[in-house]
């Protein structure tokens, strides 16, 4: 090849490249913009397809499945278990402190639709000797008759006042102990066996609630003290038989004039008979006749934000014997009241509690005035750690005057 033909060769090469460029034409700027727009549009559509047609459909299916399992199809019969338990430590003045198990109280619910519910609470405790005691706290069949009335039949907590029927469970009670007179064998009735109508309705835009009952009533206990027989106590703990055939009827009416404030008034009346003599001649019971038995109660509860105040008064009066009166001729009266305040400073989990109680019975050894102060830590709404101190004032030499330090863990489930 002769290099003097190079210009000619170069000319042909340029011509060839120019010709090729006609077939490989570079896209215009507008074409590129259009392509980008198209790609963006396709990408957007793709994203929408993923978002709308895939993810949300999947979530919808999952949600409907969860709904179907959890919400929409409960069976007609429901079985549910609730309850509470507490453990603690008590250090009483003039004695050594002891750890203890308060109680384990499972509550069983068996509900058929919105028609009927069987409720039962057991109270399982360990006594001082380490033996396990089991009691039936209540057992009722609740028939929801209509929106304003339910028929409660069986053994039920006394509707007199609020403490026994609503506040005594340890995870609800803000102090580790019951106010004197509101425990067992105190001034306030504990439970009853019979039938009860309970319900609620509004009157002139004010909410109200009611409980009316008739039951076997309590039995009376006498004791030989100071050279004579005296009424020693009222056993108002849901007797399974009616020893004297005389029924007791009563109830409570509550009003809620504004949210957070509830006022209640309770009464019960009937007959009760002495059925046991402690440390004495039981043959004396043959001359006993049914006595008048009357209970009067009033209660108040007021809550505003983190502050709660409640108070309650109960008086139980047993009349004179109208028979031969050999077991205890004179009647007796038990009265008790308490006022309690609690406050959670700064909406925190800490709660301060103070309560004053004055319990007056026919026996000086049982009379007691008590200041109780406590500090609670609310670990969860149903799990509370409590520490409290009771300043007790009673008859000299009796247990009623001994101060106590109490610690408690209470759990409701």
């Amino acid at each position, binding site marked *: 090849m002769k290099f003097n033909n190079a210009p000619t060769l170069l000319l042909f090469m340029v011509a060839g490249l120019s010709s090729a460029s006609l077939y490989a034409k570079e896209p215009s700027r507008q074409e590129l913009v259009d392509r980008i727009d198209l790609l963006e549009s396709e990408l957007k559509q793709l994203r929408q397809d993923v978002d709308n047609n895939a993810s*949300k459909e999947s*979530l*919808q299916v*999952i*949600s409907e499945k*969860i709904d179907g399992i*959890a*919400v929409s199809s*409960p069976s007609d019969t*429901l079985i*549910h278990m609730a309850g509470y338990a507490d453990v603690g430590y008590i250090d009483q003045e003039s004695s050594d402190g002891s750890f203890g198990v308060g109680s384990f109280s499972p*509550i069983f*619910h068996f*509900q058929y639709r*919105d028609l009927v*519910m069987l*409720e039962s609470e057991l109270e399982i405790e360990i006594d001082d000797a380490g033996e396990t005691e089991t009691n039936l706290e209540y057992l009722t069949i609740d028939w*929801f*008759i*209509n*929106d*304003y009335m*339910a028929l*409660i039949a069986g053994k039920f907590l006394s509707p007199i006042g*609020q403490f026994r*029927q*609503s*506040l005594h469970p340890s*995870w*609800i009670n803000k102090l580790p102990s019951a106010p004197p007179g509101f425990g067992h064998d105190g001034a306030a009735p504990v439970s009853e066996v019979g039938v009860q109508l*309970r*319900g*609620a*309705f*509004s*009157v*002139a835009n004010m909410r*109200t*609630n*009611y*409980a009316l009952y008739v039951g076997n009533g309590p039995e009376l206990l006498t004791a030989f003290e100071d050279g004579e027989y005296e009424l020693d106590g009222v056993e108002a703990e849901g007797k399974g038989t009616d020893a004297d055939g005389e029924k007791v009827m009563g109830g409570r009416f509550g009003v809620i004039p504004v*949210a*957070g404030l*509830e006022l209640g008034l309770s009464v019960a009346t009937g007959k009760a008979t002495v059925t046991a003599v402690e440390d004495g001649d039981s043959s004396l019971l043959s001359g006993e006749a049914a006595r008048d038995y009357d209970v009067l109660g009033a209660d108040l*509860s007021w*809550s505003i*934000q*983190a502050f*709660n105040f409640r108070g309650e008064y109960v008086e139980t009066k047993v009349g004179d014997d109208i028979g031969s009166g050999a077991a205890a001729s004179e009647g007796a009266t038990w009265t008790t009241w308490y006022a309690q305040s609690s406050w*959670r400073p700064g*909406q*925190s*989990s800490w709660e301060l509690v103070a309560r004053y109680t004055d319990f007056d019975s026919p026996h000086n050894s049982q009379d007691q005035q008590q200041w109780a102060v406590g500090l609670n830590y*609310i*670990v*969860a*709404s*149903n799990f*509370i750690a409590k520490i409290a101190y009771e300043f007790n004032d009673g008859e000299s030499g009796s247990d009623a005057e001994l101060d106590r330090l109490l610690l408690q863990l209470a759990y*409701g489930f």
Partner: protein
Amino acid sequence: MINTFRKMAAEISIITVVSILMLGSPSLLAKGLSDGVDAARGGALWSENCARCHNMRSPSDLNSEQWITSVYHMRVKAGLTGQETRDILAFLQNATKTATQAAVKTESQPSPISVRSAKDIYTASCSACHGDKGQGNLPGVPDLTSTKGRLMKPDNVLLANIVSGMQTPGNVMAMPPKGGNADLTDKELGAVITYLRSLTGVTPDE
């Protein structure tokens, strides 16, 4: 005064007579648990009644089915009407729905209260716990009027908290997703946040 007592006596008499006449009425017993319920009213009743005796239980403490027996148990204990019982149950069952369920419901179903104002929504679904002015009505509910409180968070964080529900550290009760009203949309909740800021005067630092 006498007229008021007469009116009350007449109402009590009517209710008593009607109740007795309806003894055993099968029509009432056949009523479904979810018929004619008002979950918003249930929320208000829940906040007013439960704390009368015990600490407020969080809606998440029990599942939807457990709440049925628990609330009917409380109907007897606390003195609730049947309608109040059903309303409270509706609120609690709504409140136990997860945030995902609540979010999906919002996107797939038009809200029946979308025409309501933010104030209406706040009154119906929030004020039972948070109070009319955001001050907090119940123990453990934070004070939204505080300049060091929850409303110092930016709107997007607040919205995410409301949609998902939240547990304030140190408090025992959790707020359910969307305050227990799954029908609320993000737009409505955003409007509620704006309303809350105007109500309390609290806005985050810029």
